């Protein structure tokens, strides 16, 4: 069998609205921009999400979806730190396989983002945080519009050189914890040039969230994505 | 020689604030006695319930028997049915070379508007070689109240169990409220004693409460120890599902739950 325009399923294959990736909600309004944050365990994804919420919550209507390995730990962190009201944070359970929930079977995450839009919307921005995983974990385009990959200098300054889908193809690479570089012997210059080698023109930002307004460059990048989304 | 018997109870308001028993028919091994009711059911306005005790069914059913017990609680009446002793399912006689026929025991319970039924039989004990199939069907009016207890004990003390299949089907206002079937013992499908079904326990029980108020205020789900749980049904019912090593431990869990739900 071949697929041609007489195949009733062809349109369904090509119609992203049929499963949630389209830019318009069922009522015709524009849905929120969805940005995924992935990266290895301990690189500072949750801290980055918290800092982004603080930096952007006065200008944008934000919600967060977390994908924990052990359920609800990250959501609990965000709640404890009161970066958003509880009803704007949803935890997705991932069955010991966080990359599956953001890449191979995104149904639970799509349900979570749609529920958030229904319950606290209209929303401008939904941050979808992946559970800490390995360097190959990336988000499906059916789930997010852009993805940030967060690594840190303490995880080894050879990570950018090693590449992998997250480092190579993410829309933004964040290299976090630059304040630790002197203590762990990481060479920031080498990390920057390795990243450039792997990513070409795709942007790389260095952050230290311990400093005042340390997340500012990432927040700036998100604002630009949002401006493009609403243009 | 197998027995076919149907015993019947009808409870109706006696016109003086209590409940009369216009029908009380024993049949075969199912001997029914009117006994003294303990107390009115609080909050129902039905007065002292009529109480019927099943006294004769201890040695039945045998394989091949078909027993039935029908109870009708008319609008505004209150009935409590209990038993003098546990019911013991026994093996039947083999006819020719074939396996012994199973025994059947069906209960049909109907409760009218504002009626109250407390169905509190003793345990059903499944002994080695027996094969009993029981089905309890309950039809409740929208304002009816029900307390129903069901306990299955697999084997007398230290004995291998027989086979028992027990289904409980409850409709309220014509719609399904609860439908559960347990099939246990050597004649049941595999895995019945594994970690998904009863996991080596020998006493299995349910306690069901149906009250119109649960529609607005369902009970909160709660664990009652490691192997028992209280759950709200999708309709106005609360169910305790419990497993225990033996009959006594099971009864303790169900009694405690009943006392608490009646507080």
């Amino acid at each position: 069998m071949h697929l041609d325009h007489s195949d009733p399923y062809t349109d369904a294959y090509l119609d992203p609205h049929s499963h949630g990736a389209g830019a318009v909600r069922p009522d015709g309004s524009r849905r929120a921009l969805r940005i995924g944050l992935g990266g290895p365990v301990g690189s500072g994804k949750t801290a980055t999400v918290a800092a982004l919420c603080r930096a952007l919550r006065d200008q944008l209507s934000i919600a967060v979806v977390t994908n924990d390995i052990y359920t609800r730990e990250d959501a609990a962190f965000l709640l404890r730190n009161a970066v958003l009201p509880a009803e704007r944070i949803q935890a997705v359970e991932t069955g010991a396989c966080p990359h599956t929930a953001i890449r191979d079977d995104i149904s639970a995450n799509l349900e979570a983002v749609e529920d958030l839009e229904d319950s606290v919307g209209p929303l401008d921005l939904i941050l979808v945080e992946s559970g800490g995983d390995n360097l190959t974990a990336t988000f499906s385009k059916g789930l997010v519009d852009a993805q940030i990959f967060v690594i840190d200098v303490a995880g080894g300054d050879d990570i950018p050189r090693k590449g992998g889908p997250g480092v190579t193809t993410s829309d933004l690479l964040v290299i976090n914890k630059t304040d630790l570089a002197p203590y762990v012997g990481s060479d920031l210059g080498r990390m920057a040039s390795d990243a450039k080698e792997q990513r070409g023109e795709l942007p790389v930002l260095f952050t230290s969230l311990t400093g005042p307004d340390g997340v500012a460059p990432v927040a700036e990048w998100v604002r630009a994505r949002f401006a493009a989304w609403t243009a | 020689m197998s027995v076919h018997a149907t015993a019947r109870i009808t409870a109706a308001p006696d016109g003086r604030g209590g409940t009369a028993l216009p029908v009380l028919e024993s049949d075969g091994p199912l001997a029914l006695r009117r006994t003294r009711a303990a107390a009115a059911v609080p909050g129902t306005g039905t007065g002292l319930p009529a109480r019927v005790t099943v006294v004769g069914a201890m040695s039945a059913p045998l394989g091949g028997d078909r027993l039935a017990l029908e109870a009708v609680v008319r609008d505004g009446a209150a009935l409590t049915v209990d038993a003098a002793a546990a019911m013991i399912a026994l093996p039947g006689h083999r006819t020719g070379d074939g396996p012994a026929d199973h025994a059947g025991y069906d209960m049909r319970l109907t409760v009218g508007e504002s009626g109250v039924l407390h169905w509190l039989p003793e345990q059903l004990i499944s002994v080695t070689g027996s094969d009993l199939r029981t089905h309890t069907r309950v039809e409740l009016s929208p304002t009816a109240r029900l307390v129903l207890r069901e306990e299955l004990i697999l084997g007398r003390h230290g004995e291998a169990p027989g086979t028992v299949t027990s289904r409980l089907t409850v409709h309220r206002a014509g719609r399904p409220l609860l439908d559960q079937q347990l099939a246990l013992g050597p004649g049941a499908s595999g895995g019945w004693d594994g970690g998904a079904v009863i996991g080596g326990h020998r006493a299995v029980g349910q306690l069901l409460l149906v009250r119109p108020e649960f529609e607005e205020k369902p009970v909160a789900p709660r664990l009652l120890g490691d192997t028992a749980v209280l759950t709200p049904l999708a309709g106005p019912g609360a169910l305790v599902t419990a497993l225990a090593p033996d009959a006594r431990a099971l009864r303790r869990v169900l009694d405690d739950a009943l006392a608490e739900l009646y507080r």
Partner: protein
Amino acid sequence: MSRAALLVLADGRFPAGGHAHSGGAEAAVRAGRLTDARDLAAFCRGRLHTTGLTSAAFAAAAVLGVDPLALDEAADARTPSPALRATARKLGRQMMRAARATWPGPGLDALAAARPRGAHQPIVLGLAARSAGLGPEDAAHCVLYETVSGPATAAVRLLSLDPFDATGVLARLAPDIDKTARHAVATAHRAVRKGPGALPAASAPLLDITAEAHAAWAVRLFAS
């Protein structure tokens, strides 16, 4: 019927959320009732003949055109655990999304509109199978395989069980799965004439009890 469509629907990678659920295996592991391949076999067999049979019959009945809303109500009555009702509806909603994107059809659309928060998953699966041109036996097989493959996959992750042993358990359940599917379909045909009351109500007390405990855990790997 298309055998290939059956493979698509039965594939564990079909994106309908199943990967995050252990089918009660995580709670059984914690309680010490599931420690090795032998326990897994008993666990899966028990699940197959209880919740598996009931769910498979509902899926088959949905394929045969029994009113899905009546089935949904009857499924609620067969699911006394609110945690398991929530899981069934959550998975039903995820299955609905995947099915409508894969095999769109009016039956799925109508149920999605009537139960926007999700219908019981086997009913949605039945309608998906129907939309894919599959029959009641196919839907029953899908449900039954998922009933046992979910805990088997979870046991591999939770116990570091040898995956060959776990797959061996599934392979040895095949005759039981076939037999149970036939039984489920036979009752589904009865339900066409007599309504959902004719469907099985086989239940598993430990799955009901431990589902409530599991739902209250603060830290767990699986959603159910």
